């Protein structure tokens, strides 16, 4: 009886460890909705920061969660159904390019001032953020 009990206990423990390892290995990216922002910025000031010193701005923001506030300049769609929201920055070329999480509703171009939370990825033609969600009240 004792042997059986021990066997069941070991089996259960291995099962729990196995589930834990599986969930760690297979876990999806943490949803952006539940994350706290490292920085809150205004789109036009943020782009300006990169224009003044790109290297310093990259070091500061790379991999960080940022909430960027600005007017929607443009909403872009790709052939896979992905959506990018470009926030106005005052610069005629460079904006804040936010690749949106699937399921996010497209904002209105030109009129909506919105706050988008995402992970800063790099300065390309724009200041880029990935896995973005629209938030109603900044954290």
């Amino acid at each position, binding site marked *: 009886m004792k042997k059986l009990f021990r066997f069941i206990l070991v089996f259960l423990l291995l099962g729990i460890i196995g589930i834990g390892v599986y969930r*760690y*290995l*297979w*876990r*999806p*990216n*943490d949803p952006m909705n539940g994350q706290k922002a490292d920085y809150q910025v205004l789109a036009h000031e943020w782009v300006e920061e990169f224009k003044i010193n790109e290297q310093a701005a*990259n070091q500061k923001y*790379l*991999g960080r969660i940022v909430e960027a506030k600005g007017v929607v300049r443009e909403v*872009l*769609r*790709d*052939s*896979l159904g*992905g959506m*990018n929201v*470009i926030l106005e920055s005052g610069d005629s070329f460079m904006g804040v*390019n936010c*690749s949106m999480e699937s399921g996010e509703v497209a904002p209105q171009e030109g009129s909506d001032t919105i706050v988008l939370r995402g*992970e*800063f*990825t*790099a*300065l*390309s*033609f*724009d200041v*880029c953020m*990935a*896995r973005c969600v629209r938030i109603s009240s900044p954290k």
Partner: protein
Amino acid sequence: MKHPSPFFTFLMSFSAFVLLSTTGVLAQSKYMTRNGLIRFEAEGPIKDDIKAVNNQAGCILDASTGDILFKIPIKSFVFKKALMQEHFNENYMESHKFPTAELKGKIEGFKPEVLQKSGVQQVMVSGKMTLHGVTRDIREPGTMEVKDGKILLRADFGVALADYGINIPKMVENKLAKVAQVNLSIDLGPTGQ
């Protein structure tokens, strides 16, 4: 005073419309996109779904010379599994040191007149690609199509990871391909410049 016939008026208006529509393509000098699509797959013999999508590739084409520039944020490649995304950025691409990839080159033999041709055309892009801090000459085929005032570029090519100093640890040799397959889907619109 004799008024022009309705048919003549229609003919003149239609001709003006056609002329303006076609010269509109030639008149544009630069075409660009901010949301070019890049799909990346590096699955080894053991299947582990190693693929990612990036929809923030920037590309600009000078339609007067055929010069082309791509700039791609590395951290914008999104994987399904968080651990894969972490390993891709921290261990392989080291995106904290090399946050972007770049390709500066030319569409070989490009002439502005090709933008007037309909249908899919075979093209060859040559230039320098910088990835993981390493710059190499590249020459890859692709296709170009002018459609609805846009230039659609498509290409499929392999990137040998070792060529760009990306080392695969022995432990994951069977999971990761030595040559990653890259698919580009770039729709360029006129910039008005």
